[in-house]
């Protein structure tokens, strides 16, 4: 695994290249609107639409290109860590034999120096000084070589490995989520029971409430639901945003709410000069007798009335921002009134026709049964992501705050001692600390300044 292509797959060069490519693609993905219909790109991004659609950049983060980069990153991390682990373990368990083996100790760049003076007498003292700083000290020797080894924070050696392992687990979890997670939206009105597809249980909405702030914006949605299995209530719980229900391997989340406008209850106020005023309650789509030989029909209701270019009425939103009902009134078989009546604007009669002068119809009240939109989510990758995240954060803390430090002093008979310092973190500061411990610098307690 140390030949050409493998080496490249394990190299940091590839890793850095991948990171850069992933950054670039991610940025592109935030610039191109995602998840639109092909028509959208042809209309708005004419020159690029061919490229966008060919590369699947309309859903860039699930495109083969992006996913293969992520997968390559996973492989890169795996190989990189794998190749580096043996050396790390060797360092963790330095053997006396290897310390005393003839030849030079393994070379690290930029971290060796000759001591200008002998240390033979005060090795004990040196050991004590290092121990006081939290180092573990080992000394060993034979007839032509004496070795002094002081080490600290050995777990720190594996900080980056922990980070990368966490990262690999997160990526694996993410790929599993992308492949296997499922989401089903369930809309329930109060009292309604719905079988959850693919599951043995049903969900019943017992009560649904929307709470508002004084300014009218939504404060909370609460769905009291029962889980039914074979007709028996297994569990009852209130689901709120941020307080999902977990059952079996599914999570149920409060996503939004709506009102079933097809079942709106209308309250119409009909006044006829000389006859009087009456209130008629009926459901949208119903016909009702209203006395005096009048038949009232409400063929339609629109919560947010607007008219398109072709003159057709439509709802701008599902919110009751401009509620309007289509009303038709018959008197003795003849249509005497037809048109839209507006709850907020009773004065508008532009969309009405009446054959009885002075007849007035008002939309006094309307109420539709609310429904709660819950989302059932199954995500087998999530637990991997959580454990990976834990390792990642732990690894970061270890990498940055428990840096491994190692000092070796190797003294051959007849030669000035060689001293080797090994660390991957802030070598300059470490050198200063060690120099101080070795008594190479005069001043004590010189603070490690970042500025002059």
């Amino acid at each position: 695994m140390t030949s050409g292509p493998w080496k490249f797959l394990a190299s940091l060069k590839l890793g850095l290249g991948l990171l850069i490519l992933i950054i670039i693609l991610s940025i592109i993905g935030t610039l191109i609107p995602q998840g639109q219909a092909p028509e959208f790109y042809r209309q708005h991004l004419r020159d690029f639409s061919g490229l966008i659609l060919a590369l699947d950049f309309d859903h860039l983060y699930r495109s083969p290109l992006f996913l293969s980069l992520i997968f390559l990153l996973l492989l890169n991390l795996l190989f990189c860590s794998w190749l580096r682990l043996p050396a790390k373990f060797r360092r963790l368990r330095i053997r006396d034999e290897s310390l005393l083996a003839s030849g030079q100790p393994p070379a690290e760049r930029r971290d060796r120096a000759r001591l200008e003076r002998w240390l033979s007498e005060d090795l004990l003292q040196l050991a004590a000084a290092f121990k006081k700083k939290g180092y573990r000290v080992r000394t060993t020797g034979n007839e032509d070589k004496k070795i002094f080894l002081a080490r600290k924070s050995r777990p720190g050696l594996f900080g980056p490995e922990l980070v990368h392992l966490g990262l690999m687990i997160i990526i694996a979890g993410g790929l599993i989520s992308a492949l296997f997670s499922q989401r089903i939206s369930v809309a329930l009105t109060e009292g309604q029971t719905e079988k959850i597809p693919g599951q043995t249980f049903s969900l019943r909405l017992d009560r649904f409430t929307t709470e508002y702030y004084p300014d009218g914006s939504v404060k909370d949605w609460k769905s009291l639901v029962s889980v039914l299995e074979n007709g028996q209530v297994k569990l009852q719980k209130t689901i709120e945003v941020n307080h999902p229900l977990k059952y079996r391997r599914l999570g149920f989340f409060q996503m939004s709410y709506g009102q079933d406008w097809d079942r709106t209850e209308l309250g119409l106020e009909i006044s006829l000069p000389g006859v009087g005023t009456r209130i008629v309650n009926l459901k949208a789509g119903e016909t009702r007798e209203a006395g005096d030989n009048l038949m009232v029909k409400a063929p339609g209701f629109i919560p947010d009335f607007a008219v398109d270019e072709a003159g057709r009425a439509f709802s701008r939103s599902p919110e009751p921002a401009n509620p309007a009902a289509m009303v038709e009134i018959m008197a003795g078989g003849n249509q005497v009134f037809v048109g839209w009546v507006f709850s907020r604007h009773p004065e508008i009669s532009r969309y009405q026709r009446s054959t009885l002068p002075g007849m007035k119809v008002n939309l006094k009240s309307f109420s539709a049964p609310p429904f709660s939109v819950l989302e059932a989510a199954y995500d087998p990758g999530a637990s991997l992501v959580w454990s990976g995240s834990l390792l990642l954060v732990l690894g970061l803390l270890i990498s940055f705050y428990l840096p491994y430090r190692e000092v070796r002093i190797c003294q051959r008979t007849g030669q000035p001692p060689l001293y080797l310092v090994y660390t991957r973190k802030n070598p300059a500061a470490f050198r200063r600390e060690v120099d101080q411990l070795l008594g190479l610098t005069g001043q004590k307690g010189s603070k490690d300044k970042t500025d002059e």
Partner: protein
Amino acid sequence: MNEFSLLLLAFIIYLLTMLTGFLFFFRTGNRMRRISYYLGLAGFVLHSLSLVRRTVESGQAPFTTMYESVSFLAWSCVLAVIIFDRKFRLEKTAPYLWLVVLALMALASSPALPKTYNPLVPALQSYWLWLHVSVTLLGEAFLAVAFVASLLYLLTPDKSHRPANEARREKLDLLAYRAVAVGFPLFTLGALVFGMIWASRAWGRYWGWDPKEVWSLITWLFYALYLHTRLVHGWKGRKSALIAVLGFLAALFTFFGVNYFLSGLHSYV
């Protein structure tokens, strides 16, 4: 004193802190440094009181509107500066950091950011709001320190012009690294991990490639790039500083830009 008077007072004291810091350039000795340090501390206390007042009065986390978030980010920067000053003696770098704090304070106090309370939409009502935003902004404050240090590095003429500058450049380089070493883990925990946990509780999915999510990932990747190019290629100095600057620009875009230029689930504030 109400929240805004406290904030204004903190603003003025931060200004004095910066000025004494710059004065220190022309004077040797520790006096100016110490005055500047205690001034900064006093401003920090007043600023904290302002945040506490707002929290108590609104009854919700002090980072739910743009004004609150910017003020909290400024506060976090002050905290980062004070901690780093104590630990590593920022000296000539400190006033430039205060300049960033002042810019944030000016933005927070400006009329462009409305000071009203917004009732929280259902998704924001969670203790994860506290954890996610506070840890993220704290992390970004340290990344801001790295940003300033790296900018100063890039602006300090190199040794071919002034050999005397080399020591200063090296210290700036180290300072930037140390700030990233604090900011990166905090940002990872706050923005990415806590963010994923919260999203999974609120929406049932931990990651949705929402623009704000993507941009925090981009920010994070920049700093991963920073660490690795340094560590393994031994990049230091100019290239390293450039990546730290780009990383922070990405963080700024995540914080301000995404809400204004891109749309998504996170555009609450």
